[in-house]
């Protein structure tokens, strides 16, 4: 659905994205991750035909976004960052205008607008002026606009920013339900969101792709895979020495808490030394009051991949 080849964009010589290559297949929901200024919005703006690329090519459904821009644009719904809207129009009126502009036949406009009003829970706000809407409602109007011509591809730039937890949940459900039928490219900072919604994650940093895989695989392959915490009644130094010898333990840090010691273990990739540690504690007669495994989260992967020096 989306094909990006060697895409580069420079602003006055400074590269925003450099030699980007990726593809998104039909029906995928792809999360586009990266710190602020990584080039997410720039990439999206090029895909929607808003900005021209400095070099490289990008196409949507086989249509080049530059030379066949109109055909490409007809197939996509775009929600820009900050959701710009005509604040002097009413919700229903705005959506009807946008539907017509995007080529929905006039006989279908009413029906389509009704559908998206329903889908984005905007029915009761149809006659409200957009300037009187709260941030959350505006976001939904933007989303309704992106959906109104029933596009094959949705490009959403931070769709849940500024929403409250309930609204975020609604939008998330909405996007999840769009998958399969439509292709979605969504940028966000909110990592749990990506794990919940996206079938694949593209991590971009300093204009380059750092990773492109399912959230699951990213976690599996992440080198600082996990950590463990053990609280036992044993002198810190003795304990640390013993734990260090367990295979799969990378390093141990200790912290005293009365006669208890708290051990923080960092583990090697894919190591699972839990059983052995438990046996060690039993054999040596340590009293254990807590033993927990902390799995690395997408956040660890994200921080690791986009750490500025990596």
């Amino acid at each position, binding site marked *: 659905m989306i094909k990006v080849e060697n895409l580069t964009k420079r602003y006055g010589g400074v590269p925003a994205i450099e030699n980007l290559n990726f593809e998104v297949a039909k029906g995928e929901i792809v999360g586009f991750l990266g710190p602020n200024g990584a080039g997410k919005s720039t990439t999206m703006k090029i895909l929607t035909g808003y900005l021209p690329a400095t070099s490289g090519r990008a196409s949507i459904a086989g249509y080049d976004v530059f030379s066949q821009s109109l055909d490409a644009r007809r197939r996509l719904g775009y929600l820009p960052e900050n959701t*710009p809207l005509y604040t*002097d129009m009413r919700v229903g009126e705005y959506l009807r*205008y946008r539907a*017509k502009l995007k080529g929905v036949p006039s006989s279908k406009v009413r029906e389509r607008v009704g559908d998206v009003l329903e889908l984005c829970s905007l029915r009761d706000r149809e006659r409200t002026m957009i300037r009187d809407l709260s941030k959350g409602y505006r976001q939904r109007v933007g989303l309704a606009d992106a959906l109104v011509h029933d596009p094959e591809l949705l490009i959403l730039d931070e769709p849940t920013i500024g929403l409250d937890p309930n609204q975020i949940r609604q939008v998330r459900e909405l996007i999840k339900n769009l998958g399969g039928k439509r292709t979605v490219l969504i940028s966000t900072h909110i990592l749990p969101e990506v794990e919940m919604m996206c079938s694949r994650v593209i991590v971009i940093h300093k204009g380059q792709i750092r990773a492109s895989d399912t959230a699951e695989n990213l976690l599996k392959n992440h080198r600082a895979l996990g950590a463990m915490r053990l609280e036992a009644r044993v002198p810190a130094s003795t304990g640390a020495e013993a734990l260090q010898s367990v295979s799969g333990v990378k390093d141990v840090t200790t912290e005293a808490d009365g006669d208890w010691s708290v051990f923080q273990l960092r583990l090697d990739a894919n190591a699972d030394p839990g059983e052995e540690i438990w046996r060690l504690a039993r054999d040596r007669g340590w009293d254990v009051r807590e033993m927990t495994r902390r799995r690395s989260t997408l956040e660890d992967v994200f921080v690791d991949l986009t750490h500025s020096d990596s």
Partner: protein
Amino acid sequence: MTAFLTLLGREIKSFFYSPIAYVVLFYFLLLSGFNFYFQISILNGYPTEFTVVEVFFMPALFWFPFILSFPLITMRVYSEEFRMGTLETLTTAPVTDWQVVLAKFAGVVFFYVILWAPSLLSFVCFKYLTGHEAAAAAGSYWGTYLLLFLMGLFYISIGCLASAMTKDQINAATISFTTITLLLFLGFLSDVVGITDPTLKEMNSYISAVEHMRDFSKGIIDSRPIVWYLSMTALMTFLTLQVFQYRKWKA
């Protein structure tokens, strides 16, 4: 075509979403009504060779609000889109830049026509009340309103260009007001400076709006001003497209 008409519809409606349209319409009517009344009172005083139409379109009371109306009706056309960020939703919809530029231009022209249409009523009323034609011949009406329309096209295209250059409406208004005023004053130049060189004088009269009005309101429809206004409008609109695309891609 549907996209163009949809855009045009939004442009026309957007005038009436804000109070600007009503305020401009109100004061414009007030001023032109006063101008009409004032000129007739003068005409009543002594015999003259001018018709009512001619005197209506000659004095500063006509030219001043006329010039002032263009910055007011064009300043927000592009600036507002830049400022609100709606340029992004507008240009990522399947519409061409030409459609956007022409729809915005046509939208203002439409409002301009609405602005001027009621002034015709003054002349109708005059005829109804006095039994005299305000102008001796139909050509005088045709000529005057044709020229009014042509000048409108040109000055609106200047206003649109100014608005496309900045996201600040005040800046846009200042640029267009200054440009249009300068253009108008260029027309007086030969009188003020006392140019005697015939070539310069002819060039000057070629672009002098005041002189065009003098001819057209007598019913003398000269093709040179028509070509001048239409070609300048085309040039300004073309430049507007260039500026619009430049700003869009620089964003």
